[in-house]
């Protein structure tokens, strides 16, 4: 338990170790700790920002979705209207066409019946005349009776 130069030796080595620690140990490690702390804080705040952005995006998406839905509804209703329009138009056109065709057919039928009547008239009159001729051949002058038949024909 002698006090001697070891005291001074220890003081010197203490000073050297403290100097080394102050120069090469303490600053890098504490700065690393500090930076890591900052990094973690930054990460946390970034995560929070991201969450907020996500929330916003969700709201955005919702509004866009409802917009798109209403637009789609609009388009569908317009298409329905257009469809009924087209159908109506087609109906009108078709009925017009049919009535036109009907009219034409009626006219044709009328003409045909007229012609038939004419020819029937002629045939009947001829037959009548012939019959009458056959019956009256000897008694009736042809010319006088022609005139009478003509009158009859016109009467028919």
């Amino acid at each position, binding site marked *: 338990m002698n006090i*001697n130069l070891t005291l001074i030796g220890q003081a010197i080595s203490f000073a050297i170790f403290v100097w080394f620690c102050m120069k090469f140990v303490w600053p890098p490690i*504490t700065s690393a700790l500090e*930076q890591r702390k900052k990094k973690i804080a930054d990460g946390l705040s970034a995560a929070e920002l991201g969450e907020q952005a996500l929330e916003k995006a969700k709201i955005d998406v919702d509004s866009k979705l409802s917009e798109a839905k209403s637009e789609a509804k609009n388009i569908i209703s317009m298409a329905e209207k257009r469809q009924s329009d087209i159908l109506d138009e087609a109906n009108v056109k078709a009925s017009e066409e049919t009535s036109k065709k009907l009219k034409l057919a009626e006219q044709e039928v009328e003409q045909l019946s007229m012609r038939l009547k004419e020819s029937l008239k002629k045939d009947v009159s001829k037959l009548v005349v012939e019959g009458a001729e056959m019956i009256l051949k000897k008694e009736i002058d042809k010319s006088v009776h022609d005139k009478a038949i003509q009158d009859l024909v016109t009467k028919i």
Partner: protein
Amino acid sequence: MAAGAQTGSEYIKHHLTNWTFGKDPSDGVWKIAETAQQAQEMGFYAIHLDSMGWSVALGFIFILLFGLVGRKATTGVPGGLQNSIEIVIEFIDSNVRDTFSHTNKLIAPMALTAFVWVLLMNLMDLVPVDFIPQIATYIGVHFFAMDPHHVYFKIVPTTDPNVTMGMSLSVFFLALFYSIKNKGVGGFVGELTLHPFTSKNLLIKLILIPINLFLEGVSLLAKPISHGLRLFGNLYAGEMIFILIALLPLYAQWTLSVPWAIFHILVIVLQAFIFMVLMVVYMNMAHDTGDH
């Protein structure tokens, strides 16, 4: 027990003597002391080779370990070594922040150095008392042809008052330096002479100066001495008990040495911590101005 021929008290004395290199007063030659008597006669001009060697080696372990981590310190996910070093650093940092209320870049690294270094030196106390001294004796006898009774080897530097006082006196002189730097010579002298007794009357004030100086002087000088001797005393006592336990018969030693070693783990950490905290407290007092 170490050498068979020794008596108990010789064994203890042998274990408490340092490996001393110094100037022999009888012929003025620098040499290694062969007996405890000779080591004592060498007086101040001697150096304890074992204390110095172990303390410097342990200090190198500290700076190599921490320096390595400091050089490779990553801000990302730390590895196991960096993590444990960071725990120590943060522990010291929070302690210094709590105790030291001023700005001084020296204090925290100094506290870290003191804590880890003292802790490592104290830890040597847990190495069985005869382990390394026996190896040293073997080397001394076989390679240097020494008398086995002349090989002295203490492995716990903090059981050497030179080591603990060397550190506490460094802190003391640093505290004096900062006191004078921060308070000025006048402020420092005023602190020593105008407290704790004070008066508004100038004459009484003058009379009180020597009383104050005496009281403050004693408390000023008591700080480094108690600071260094507290650490020394605790570790010396611990070492002494280990040595006493080593005197028991071989089969009975563990019944005492194991509980004492387990208890001593607490002492080792606690004393290192106390040494560090007192150092920071004294430094804080040296920086405190005004509120006295």
